[in-house]
């Protein structure tokens, strides 16, 4: 793979969640750190997100949740698996109760960022996991 290619990440909301502040901030943080961000915005279905991920050839998908039905993210992982795209990392963040984090990771979510994480921790995570 071309070493000079920038890391490319989708940041999206999913389902019916309209609370965009978190996603906007994370998209900006990643952009500022040199990561290419495809911001999909609100009301995205798992199908739309996976289609965009394949079309845009991204390295990772980040989903922002605000007190939502977090388990919708499992559908993304299943779709990626069906399409043979398990190499695309899936992470999420938002108001997610701590107790639900192990359950999400069990389902294949690579990392879960709670509101207590710093900007650097998200950037570092992506840069250490993805080397292009």
């Amino acid at each position, binding site marked *: 793979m071309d070493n000079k290619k920038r890391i490319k990440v989708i940041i999206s909301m999913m*389902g*019916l*969640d*309209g*609370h*965009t*502040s978190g996603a*906007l*901030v994370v998209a*900006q*943080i990643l952009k500022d750190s040199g990561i290419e961000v495809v911001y999909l915005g*609100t*009301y995205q*279905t798992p199908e739309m997100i996976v289609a965009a991920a394949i079309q845009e050839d991204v390295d990772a998908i980040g989903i922002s949740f605000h*007190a*939502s*039905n977090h*388990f*919708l993210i499992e559908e993304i992982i299943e779709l990626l698996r069906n399409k043979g795209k398990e190499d695309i990392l899936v992470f999420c963040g938002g*108001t997610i*109760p*701590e*107790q*639900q984090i192990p359950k999400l990771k069990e389902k294949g979510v690579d990392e879960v960022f*709670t*509101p*207590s994480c*710093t*900007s650097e921790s998200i950037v570092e995570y992506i840069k250490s996991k993805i080397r292009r």
Partner: protein
Amino acid sequence: MKRETDYGHTLKAVYTPKDIEGFDYERDLADPGLSPYTRGYYPEGYRSRMWTQRMTAGLGSSQDTNKVLHKYREMGQRGGMCVIADRPTALGIDSDHPIGRKEAGVLGWPGGSLAEFEELMEGIPLTGQSITLLGSSAHSMIRLAYVFALAEKRKVNIEEVHGGVLEYPYGSLFGQDDNQPLDLTMKLFLDASEYAIRNKFHLRAGILSQHFQESGGNNAQALALEMAMLNEICSFLVNERGLDFDDVAKLPYELVSIGTRFFEEIAKIRALRRMWVKLAKGKFKAKKEESCRLLISVHTSGRTMTYQQPLNNIVRTAIQTLAGAVAGCTAIDNATLDNAHAEPSALAARMSLNTQHIVADETGAADVVDPLGGSYFVEYLTNQVEEEAYKIWNKIEELGGMSGAIKKEYIQNMLREEIIKKHRQFETGERTIVGVHKLVIPSEEDFKIPIQEVQASDSENIARRMEELKKTRNIPLVKEKLGQLYNDAKKENRYNLMPSVIEAVKAYASEGEIIGVIRLARGLSYDPFKMITCPFDF
């Protein structure tokens, strides 16, 4: 550490009479109960009317939310109830919609049909307390129809029901779960408002700055936006709908978000009262004094509730509640200590209600009206936030008012920039949050609060209930009423759809059907997500 207001105005160490030079008590403040109402609307303040002490409810099924409403009454909710709709409802789709069924009952009450409202209100009176229903703008027209229909069923005079059910059309801009195009939400909002005003309902419309501020906007911007929104809505109702301003003025209520910047939050509310008087008297030539008193409710800020050391949030809520009480308001509903984790647990809700009662009964803050009136600092801040807000508001008006400024993306950009600026200020430590930037503890040492979890099976049950309703209602009647609505929605834009929406609601047409049919008549897809089609043909 920054020593400036949340809108970036540098603060001095001390304020003196020089900072409010030219101050004129009668002109700038006046006694409580007298114009310009800076000090509040009632000469006796909370002695004559205690603020409504309430909590927002809504999670799981209608039955679950009904239980919570009963529980809140037991816990000490006084004067009014407040329920927020779930996401599918807010977005105009039914709980049996392919996407809706995954999120029904999440983040709110599934208000998809009159049947749900009837179950929600089981054993809860429509009168003797204020009825506040939140959600999204398009759905608010249907909420108004629910209240109307249930009052009729219970043989309650609708004029005796009071509260706030309608909701402003701009919410989709401010991170709300709202997806209808602005011209559609505006039309429906004006239809419902006009209907409520002409029929002398005492059910108000929320023109809210809370959503904007909770998304990350600052105090001066929130104040400016509130005025711009009020100005645009009132202008439409007066100029386009031919209503008298003194009738229109009975419609709006404002929900202010109160953060932890204690004095600034108080100044903001005092300035808002003064600015509304100027608009009501200056532009709209209000004839009645009552029209110059804008109803102001307070929501303590969920945005300030931290994930780390959640017990700290009890302290924050207490400070914010005290600010709301000192500023003078008609109702307070609180954020809860677990806001950054999940929906409110029973414990967190109880703490929030207790906080209000402690402020009301123990601190003495409810004994004296506008206790900070005359403070050099607070008067200075009140003037300052008003001045800043006028600058932003004028800019919005230059761009063609609220709708014009939205079209030119001015509002969206202002909010986006402010969100990112705030985030940077917190990350760089220019502004400090205890437990996040200082006095940080390892998460394993943190107190574990109870968590209100959401189960996917709950959503599926709500979806099945909607499917069942759709099979068991009088289907020819539903079709007839929806057909009428479809025809009416095809008429000129100003033809009021409220009567046919009420008829459809009474026939148990669902919300997704009602909004879908209106959308269809206006050339939009029946389903905003384009996954299902209209089950009826007209």
